[in-house]
């Protein structure tokens, strides 16, 4: 957010917000810990708005649910912005003092009238207006989002559309107000913070930052760090396709199942000269690998830190010895470096961490293991050992003195662009991917465990669609997109509506959902458009349905 890749608020602030918008997020199931804070807020009177194509279990807690069409979020957000402007609810002093680009923004959203937004999104104008007014009038309001926002071909624009609303109303940088992207796992935030983002060095420094690069080079003492950003995952697959990328070292990622348009992705992986997979399970990607390096499950078999969605760095401690030949990731990596002729030694987790602290001067410098232990985790930025950490970010935007206020936050006007995968007569149904309470992505970490909630993977669809197509509940059908085709049983789901169907990505061994999804990706974030696929659904004939 405004240059720092992390949520602006602490979880606990949700308990004290007056209004929470969960946008493209079924946090009730996908972020149950965060949702506990939301529930705490609700019991104290917090109003909840849910913006989601599906009437999810989150939406059932909401005071108002806005069931928009998949891929129309920007139109909705722009209409909300326009309504706020026209109703005179803009936080003038904040906009003037702490932001730039308001005029351009106002011009961009001007065509997005409530009526036009209703036409594009399907949400009644009155509900859009209600959300606009409630959000702008609230004393403390948060917008929280997850993959419903970020798994689109223009995902970054979606995020900008939401940031614009926060800037318009001043709902950022104050306790209880904020922008909260919810991370999918315990350490997605930490992975990015440690440099697993092509354009970033650990600690959030841009690779083009000469001064930062020099500092890192001095510590790393290896080859010069390139000032150009590297490739992200989607670009890597394109490079494979062009024959420019021939070897892949894949750590804790299962692209042979999790990539969009996965059949194509698998072909590319198979065409590599050399594939190394380092993982805790023998994943589908590992099946394709030349070398498999068994890794320990670092959350219980080794130690280190994780960073959650509220930027809180927490210690992880070892409880078990890893099985068989499995070893901690850092040990494997250091050994490879050593074999390649670089003396990385065999540092402890704390030594690795302290090295990071020596270069991540702003975010992590003050976070010694001792302090992390004593404080039960610290939220970055934490530049010095006497710094308490930063639960709330961007409070500076509210400073009255320009020097303390620092750089203004820019509006980023964005336009609605429909999903790449168009709905046509041949592909009339919008398929979206959704997640369940008891499973993670491709199921590597969760598929091996029993769960009382577990159902066989099914195509969830609306009852009236099924009736129209002559499909019975539980019947097996063929689902076809422009890229591929899968078979699956049907489960009627009242959270969906006519024209909308869903799969989970969790049970690829049952249904290879990413054979359908679109690998069109966002140039700014590299994320593929998992959320919007055009499909058709066909009966398999009168064969009796078999278990999935």
């Amino acid at each position, binding site marked *: 957010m405004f240059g720092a890749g992390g949520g602006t608020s602490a979880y606990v602030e949700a308990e004290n917000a007056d209004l929470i918008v969960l946008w493209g997020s079924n946090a*009730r199931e996908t972020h149950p810990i965060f949702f506990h804070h939301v529930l705490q807020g*609700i019991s104290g*009177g917090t*109003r*909840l708005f849910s913006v989601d194509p599906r*009437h999810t*279990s989150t*939406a*059932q*807690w*909401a*005071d*108002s*649910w*806005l*069931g*928009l069409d998949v891929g129309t979020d920007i139109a909705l957000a722009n209409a909300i912005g326009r309504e706020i402007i026209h109703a005179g609810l803009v936080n003038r002093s904040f906009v003037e003092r702490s932001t730039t680009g308001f005029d351009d923004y106002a011009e961009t959203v001007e065509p997005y009238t409530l009526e036009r937004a209703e036409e594009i999104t*399907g*949400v*009644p*104008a*009155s*509900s859009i207006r209600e959300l606009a007014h409630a959000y702008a009038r609230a004393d403390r309001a948060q917008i929280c989002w997850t993959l419903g926002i970020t798994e689109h071909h223009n995902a970054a624009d979606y995020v900008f559309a939401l940031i614009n609303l926060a800037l318009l109303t001043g709902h950022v940088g104050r306790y209880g107000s904020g922008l909260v992207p919810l991370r999918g796992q315990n350490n997605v935030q930490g992975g990015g913070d440690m440099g697993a983002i092509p354009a970033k060095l650990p600690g959030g420094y841009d690779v083009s930052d000469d001064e930062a690069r020099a500092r890192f080079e001095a510590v790393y003492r290896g080859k010069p760090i390139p000032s150009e950003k590297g490739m992200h995952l989607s670009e890597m697959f394109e490079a494979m396709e062009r024959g420019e990328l021939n070897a892949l070292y894949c750590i804790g990622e299962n692209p042979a199942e999790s990539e969009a348009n996965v059949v194509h992705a698998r072909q590319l992986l198979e065409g590599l000269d050399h594939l190394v997979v380092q993982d805790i399970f023998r994943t589908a990607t590992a099946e394709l690998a030349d070398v498999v390096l068994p890794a320990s499950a670092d959350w219980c078999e080794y130690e280190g830190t994780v960073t959650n969605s509220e930027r809180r760095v927490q210690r992880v401690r070892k409880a078990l010895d890893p099985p068989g030949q499995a070893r901690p990731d850092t040990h494997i990596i250091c050994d490879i470096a050593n074999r390649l002729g670089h003396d990385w030694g065999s540092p402890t987790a704390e030594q690795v961490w302290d090295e990071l602290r020596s270069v991540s001067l702003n975010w992590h410098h003050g976070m010694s293991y001792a302090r992390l232990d004593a404080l039960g985790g610290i939220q970055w930025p934490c530049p010095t050992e006497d710094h308490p950490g930063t639960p709330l970010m961007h409070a500076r935007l509210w400073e009255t003195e320009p020097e303390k206020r620092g750089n203004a936050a820019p509006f980023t006007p964005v336009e609605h662009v429909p999903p790449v995968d168009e709905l046509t007569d041949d592909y009339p149904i919008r398929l979206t991917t959704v997640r369940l309470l008891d499973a993670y992505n491709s199921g590597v970490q969760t598929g091996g465990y029993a769960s009382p909630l577990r159902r066989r993977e099914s195509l969830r669809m609306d009852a009236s669609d099924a009736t129209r197509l002559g499909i019975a509940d539980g019947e097996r059908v063929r689902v076809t997109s422009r890229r591929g085709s899968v078979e699956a049983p049907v489960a009627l789901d009242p959270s969906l*509506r*006519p024209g909308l169907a869903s799969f989970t990505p969790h049970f690829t061994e049952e249904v290879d959902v990413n054979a359908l999804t679109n690998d069109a990706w966002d140039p700014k974030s590299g994320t593929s458009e998992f959320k919007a696929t055009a499909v058709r659904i066909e009966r398999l004939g009168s064969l009796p349905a078999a278990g999935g």
Partner: protein
Amino acid sequence: MDLHLSSASPTEGEREAIDAAFAMLAPTVPERDGDVATRSVHAGHAARSRRHLLLPMLHAVHDAVGWLSEGALNHVARTLQVPPAEVYGVATFYAMFSVEPRAPRVVHVCDDVACGPFGGEEIIAELEPGLDGSTDACWVRSPCLGLCERAPAVLHQRAGEPDLSQAPATPSSVLQAAQAPADPTGEQASAADHAFADTTVSAPQTRTGEHLRLLRRVGVVDPGSLDDYRAAGGYAALRRAVDLGPTRVIAELKDASLTGRGGAAFPTGVKWETVAATPERPHHLICNADESEPGTFKDRVLMEGDPFGLIEAMTIAGYVTGATTGHLYIRGEYPLATRRLQDAIAAARARGYLGDDVMGEGFAFDIDLRRGAGAYICGEETALLESIEGYRGEPRNKPPFPATAGLFGKPTAINNVETLYDVLEVLNIGGQAFASVGGGKSTGSKLFCVSGAVGTPGVYEVDFGTTLRELLDLAGGTRGELRTVLLGGAAGGFVMPSDLDTPLTLEGAREIGATLGSGVVLVFDTAADLTGTLRRIAAFFRDESCGQCVPCRVGTVRQEEALARLERDAPIGSRETELALLDDLARVMRDSSICGLGQTAPSAVMSAIDLGLIAAPSRNAGGPDSNGHAHPEVNGHSGNGHGGGR
């Protein structure tokens, strides 16, 4: 809200009944303009804030179809956004609800202390074969139906047709009513109501026209006519209250030393003052008309005979305490009183005596009539609060007291029906004049529910200070030889003939270790089966314990078991160990139960034991037992000599 419902769905009839009740009860319909179910749904706080409609909704569907199916409970759960387990928990809390399929007509036969020995058992003996195999009607035993002066009493609970009471009932009349053709228009109910038209049966004093205060309009006015009520002095008290203003009304109540007639005898003026002075809003008013103490029927007679009086009194209470809504919680077994109050509320509303601007005086007040569903415990004031809020009627810990944190956590004045009628009298004659009758905490007049072995059972109004003997004389004297009097109901105690000259005041009763309670005066002659009565009382408390706290839940069961063993003359150990056990149980229940039910559940039993009323084997005669109890006298049962040493 995450509701996990089973797949059971309601029948068309159940759905209609629930939806219609919801549309009527929920002032704001959940859907808004422009809501399209697949595009926008408004729920959240608004949808989750209607839990208090749970009991009325259950009534609606139960009234329509006669039982609560899983599908119906699911639909209620979905409509009110209440977890189905909690809906089930509430549905199964009340005796009048069935979650099993049941005949649409249910005959509740009172077999309690006042009716059982006076014809109730004969009715049951007749119904058992009479309704055997019938799919249209069934019968159940019921605790006191509050019709003791007309014993034996029967309540016909009917699905799809109005409920009705029969009293006095005969086996043949009950069977006939149970097998009568369907009555969707309520003709049979009207006919049954008409049987209660002669008020001199229930309130014999109204025949003579002597000076009555609380009962003065009963039998004098047409209970369906607001004009009649006004012609008989109605709404003069409210006018006077408005002239005085809330502060001076409270001063009058304090001058009158009016104390609550529900049993606790708390000063009404102090209670109203506390509520009125608490800054938190809104304030609530509740009239506790859940009259369920066995042997009690005075409130019923007042509400049936003078319904507008209660409405006026509640309006005064609302005006004084600053409450804009009065919840009138009436027990579910009172179909006639409920109908009379419904009509009276509607009439008062139509004429501007209830509503946004009462009598043009610029204050708002309306009455929400709530029906209980067969739960004695809901007469306990905090259980009543839970019941109105849509929870199981399990009492709360006190403090906080309802006057500061009551209904929905807000300041709440809860008053008994009789107390509210007293308020009218205070305003009519003034506090000083009211206080000139009786003395101490016992000022004004008091209603007593005289039943059992007396010449003319009924509600009697006497000045505080009248002796028990005078009261019995007023009621035509004892039939047969007087054995004892149960004073104060099942939660009260026994009074022996030697104490008949005790003045009937709070203080006088306390002096002989008794309590006036709810004004029950149940008279037993020497032919009465007192042991059976005690077992019925013990069974009553065991059945009515809400089960929330251990001393009461376990204690009432063990008390009944011990009494049963004593009655069978099969004690574990000796008779003395059983009496010691009862004494022990009584102390634990009294000291550690959450509410008055558990605290008073052993009262009558212990009083009977102390007074030597309980049947005892003859071989134990001679000398007090080891616990220092007066030795029980022998009353004809001969011991079999095998009682001890099991």
